[in-house]
Structures are given as C-alpha cells and as structure tokens.
C-alpha cells in the first residue's frame, strides 16, 4: 500500500446551487433516497447524504448539473450513469464508482474499489487514495486521477481519455487498449497484451504538472517523471479478409 497522500482536496466543481440541505440515508430505502436526491437536485440544491453506510447504487442516473456530497463510504456503482454531477465522497467506495460518467466531477477522499470510472465517457474522477483492479476499464473519455496505487488490469481495453496514476500500477496494465494514455508515476507491475511504454514528452510533463497542481497536488509529492502506457497497436488489424474475399470485393 502506498502512504495516503496528504493534499488539499479540491471542492467539487460548483454547479448553480442555492442553499443546501442534508438527507439521512439510514431513514430511507435506496429507492426513496435516490428519489429524494433526484428531486432535490432538480431544484438546484446541494445535498449532503449522511450515513451512506456503504449502500449500493446511490445517486445513479442523474442527468443534470448538480452538487452532492456523501459523508461516509459508498457501495457499488455510486454516481453511475450520471451526466453533469459534482460529487464528493468522504470515505471509500465499492466497485464501479462513476461508471459511464458522461460529464462532471467526482472526488473520493479515500480508496475506490474495482472498476472505478468503468467505461466513463467524459468528466473527471479524482481518487485521493488507491484504486482496485480494472480502474478505467473500457474508458472512452475524460480523466481519471489516482493519487495512490492502482490495481490489476488498469486501463483494460481503454478506448480514449487518460488515466494518471501517481503511484504504481499492478499487472497487465493497459491490456488490449485501443487508444488513450495511462501515465504512471511509480512502478508498473507488468504490461498487458499489446501495451507498450513510452516516456512522456517535455510538453506532456509540463501540462501534466500544471493539471495536477490545479487539483491542489503539492509539488513535493508529484512524481519526478511519468511513464506512459499506450497501445502498441498490433491488435488493430488481423487481416480480416480472406484471399478470395479480397479478390472478389471489387466495388
């Protein structure tokens, strides 16, 4: 485990929010809780969810700019299938945090379970602790920042976007990725199929540092150099036409 990185956690991007209020999750079923969150955010108010108690499927399917915080840990698929959400999670999360995120920002102050940012298409997820296996799996856009370490199969079948891991990544990193970049500050356990490393260019380093500093990462904890995992593109084509098919397709 990496040491928890101290840092000034950025406030979630602020949506137009009037006065906020809190909801005690212990008093509600998941259905009622989500319905209350959806109706609250439609009025443009910041909502703090108290006692989330690692409950699954909280704040999913919100397709509106809004601002939320969870005063504790959340279970699977928190903030999944959202578009425009700004959320902060004070504790840890289960699998699939920010699954299929379209736009917006999610900040988690501690560790994220497996498949954080799975298939995300835009927006930004910032994990201040470590991430489990398959972080950024099938990622299609946006940025996933992991301040600690990231597990097995980071960026598996990634299509677009970027993953920035300040610590190390586990085995099979970048396996079968199409496009996108995984930046790694620490050690790479091993590379996955069809992944290769490159060193980040100077301008990339400058851009990365500026980006991370804007997220309030202190200079002294930024890695000295970033390695970069990209697709080797050997799986791009497997000669999909047979000789006869090639001859015949004359159009």
């Amino acid at each position, binding site marked *: 485990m990496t040491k928890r990185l101290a840092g000034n956690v950025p406030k979630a991007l602020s949506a137009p929010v009037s006065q906020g209020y809190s909801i005690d999750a212990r008093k509600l079923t998941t259905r009622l809780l989500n319905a209350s969150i959806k109706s609250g955010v439609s009025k443009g108010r910041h909502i703090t969810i108290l006692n989330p108690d690692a409950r*699954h499927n909280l704040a999913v399917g919100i397709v509106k700019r809004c601002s939320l915080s969870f005063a504790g840990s959340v279970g699977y698929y928190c903030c999944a299938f959202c578009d425009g959400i700004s959320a902060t999670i004070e504790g840890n999360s289960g699998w699939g945090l920010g699954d299929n995120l379209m736009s917006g920002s999610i900040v988690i102050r501690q560790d994220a379970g497996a498949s954080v940012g799975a298939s995300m298409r835009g927006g930004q997820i910032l994990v201040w602790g470590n991430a489990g296996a398959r972080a950024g799996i099938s990622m299609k856009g946006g940025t996933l920042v992991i301040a600690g370490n990231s597990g097995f199969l980071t960026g598996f079948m990634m299509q677009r976007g970027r993953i920035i891991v300040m610590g190390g990544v586990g085995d099979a990193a970048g396996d079968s990725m199409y496009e996108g970049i995984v930046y790694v500050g620490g050690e790479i356990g091993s590379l996955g199929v069809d992944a290769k490393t490159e060193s980040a260019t100077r301008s990339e380093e400058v851009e990365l540092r500026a980006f991370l500093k804007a997220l309030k990462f202190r200079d002294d904890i930024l890695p000295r150099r970033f390695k970069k995992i990209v697709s080797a593109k050997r799986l791009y084509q*497997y000669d999909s036409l047979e000789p006869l098919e090639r001859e015949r397709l004359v159009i």
Partner: protein
Amino acid sequence: MIVSDEVSRREGWTNEVFQDLQVKAELGRYRIRGFSTFQRIAHFDDIIFIPRYISGKGVELRPADVSTETVLGTRYAKNAISISTPVYITGMSYGALSRSAKTALAKGAAKVGTATCTGDGGMLTEERKYSTTMIYQVNASRYGVTPQDMISGDAVEVVVGQGAKPATGGLLMGQKVSAIIAKKRELPPGIDQRSPTRHPDWLGPDDLGIFIEMLREVTDWRVPVQVKIPACRVKDDVKLAAKAGADGIVIDGMQAGTGASSEVVLDHSGIPTLPGIVLAREALEELGLLKKVYLVASGGIRNGIDAAKAIALGADAVAIGQAAIIALNCNRELPGITDFVREVGVPAGYCTKCHTGKCPVGITTQDPRLEKRLAIDEAAVRVASLLSSMTLEMKLITCALGKRNVHDLTVDDLSALNVEASMMAKVPMVGSGGTLLKSAGKGK
C-alpha cells in the same frame, strides 16, 4: 465424370473440408464469417403440433378469434411492455447494420405494434423516434451508451452474450468501422474492433444483482430489465439471472445469427435453441418463477410456426434477427442493381459476407453507395408484412389446436419427429407415446 468408390466415400473429408484447410493454410488464422451456424442440428422442423379431433372440444375457431397480445415484465417494473404479437426484433448493432436497415426495422416493427432492440453500438435517434417499444441494450462493450438513451427506453436488456458466438465479444471488421461508426463507438476508424466478453463492472451473479438494481434506479423502476443469455449452461445461468432480479430472460440458442464471428464458436459452441428453451423453462419452474419472470426465445426462428413452437415449449415471446434481415432483402438479387457473384463472389441465396461490409443490398454495410440500395420505407413495409405473416401463422396453428390464445399453447400440443428432437425438446416421439426421458411431456 466417373467418381471412384474411394473418392465418393469420404465422410468427414468433403470438398468443403479440403477447401477450408486450403484457405487456412494460406490464412494462418481462424476463419470469420457472418449469418449463423450451418450445422445440422435438431431444430423446430423436427417437432410438430398434434391437433385434437373427436377427443377435443370441437369448437370451430377462426384465426381472427385468436389473441396474440403479449405483456412482458410484470415482476418489478411499473410499466410492463405490451406488444400486439409475441414476435419482436432482436438487438442488432448500428455498425453491423446500416442506419437505413436499423431505421427500416424500427418503422416496420412499429407498424404492427411490436418491439425493437438497439444493439452493441448505441441507439440511433431514428430508432427511438420510430419505435413504439424500444428495448435498450447494455452490452459488455458499452459502445455509445448514455444514461439519457437508456432512460428513453421502454425496457433495458443486459447482454451476457450471444447464442451465435457464446463467450466471445462482438466483432466489427475494419471495413465497417467507418468514421461515423468509429465516432459513435469512440474507436480509431478502420480498426478491427473486438468487443470485450465480460462486462467492465460486474463479474458474478452477486454483482449482477446489484447491477440490475442500479439499472432500475437509473430508470426509476419504470421499465423491465431483461437479461440475454447465450444457451450454454442454461439451468445455472437462468437461475442465477432470475435470482439476481431480472424481470425477463432471453435465451439465445446456437442457431442465432451474427454479423461476424469466428467459425469455431459459430459452429462448435453453445447448445441449440430447442433444449435452450426447455432448460430455461425448467429452471424457472424449479425456482417457482415461471410466468413471473418472462422468457424470450431467440436463435434461428424463421416463421410463425417456429415462434408458436417456441411458445408451446415455454417461451412468452420470441425475438427474430436473421428473419427480419431477410425481409429487408438479404440474399435477394435486385435486377439492374446488384450482382452478387461479382460483388461478393457467391450467388444470391448463398451469401454470408456480412462481416466484409460489402453487403450488396445495403443492410450490413457502412458504405453509403451500397446503403442507398435499401429503400427504407419499402423495407419497413416488408418487415411489417413478415411480422404480420408470422403472427397470422401463429394464430392459424393456435386455432387448429382449438385454442383462443397463442399463449395457451403448451408442450402437450407437441410431438417430435425423431429421437434426437424428442430428447432435446422433451416431447414424446410421434407414435411412441413417450420419450426416453422421464420428465417429458410436463406442461407449462
């Protein structure tokens, strides 16, 4: 030409096998093609309906008296799907199919009041606009998936896999990954796209349960969530999916179609549709969930009789893919427009070249010149006519069996023409009065 006995007796070493070996000796990889398996497997033609005469009720019914109304998804969803016929159009991706083909399918299905399903390439606006009932697929690849599209759907389908190619993900060859398709799927244009086999965010049955609940929360428990399973270890998979909270199960047998697959899995993996349906029905019966969790059968359903047989075996509805594609004009020479031999190297009627993207009739292509050959509105009329014909065929056989509702057909109405089908469908062999299996003949 005189063929010697040695040459004509070469079971297992046919011309096709020689050719296959010669192609692979040059190719250095497994072969890929579209359509479906061509293995000789027990199928719907191997079972028949047995009407009653003097032993029956003796009512005279007309097809018009028979109801085909179908309601799916009453387990948890607020709004169940209600369709006029138990036949709907299965998920086929925009990418594998052209935009015109997807649009024609949506328009055709809407004309008869049945459903369509999106596919592994996201939803088209036309698809939503024209479909009266649209099932939104969530595939392992998640290409083009958006919460807004999902919320606009009338049902959600979690695709565990496809019967045509179990345990392998979708394939879309580079010729079909046009700039537009690449953009929609967020991929580099022109690459041979391989979809993942497993979902990115759930792996086992417990995760699936949480995942299904998540989809319900996203859609506010409004619409049914169905799980599509390729027929393999049917009993285990159906039980696990039903326990995970699915409203419905789609069981996709090995005769299902595809736009591209390796021949290896197309011909040599999964189990046929007949035993697929029967095992799925038994799995639900054993859980006490039969009719509470609906069952959709797909995989090689070609006409209303196949559909009626699937329903008699235990399905609540059937989904068609290849049959609808054929209604669009697949494998039909269009005089003055197409030249199958020149364009794809085989005469119309023998084409399986969907994977090449050069579909002569504009269905499985992304080439605008070819796509123009598919006139959307005319194609939609043909799709609607096919669906109406199938529905009428179902009505006819149902009234021939003295019943007023297609959903009243049961296994007791069926017999098998050969031992193989009798064992697989668990219906009595004609004339024998039984099967080799104990559990045969159990009603729905």
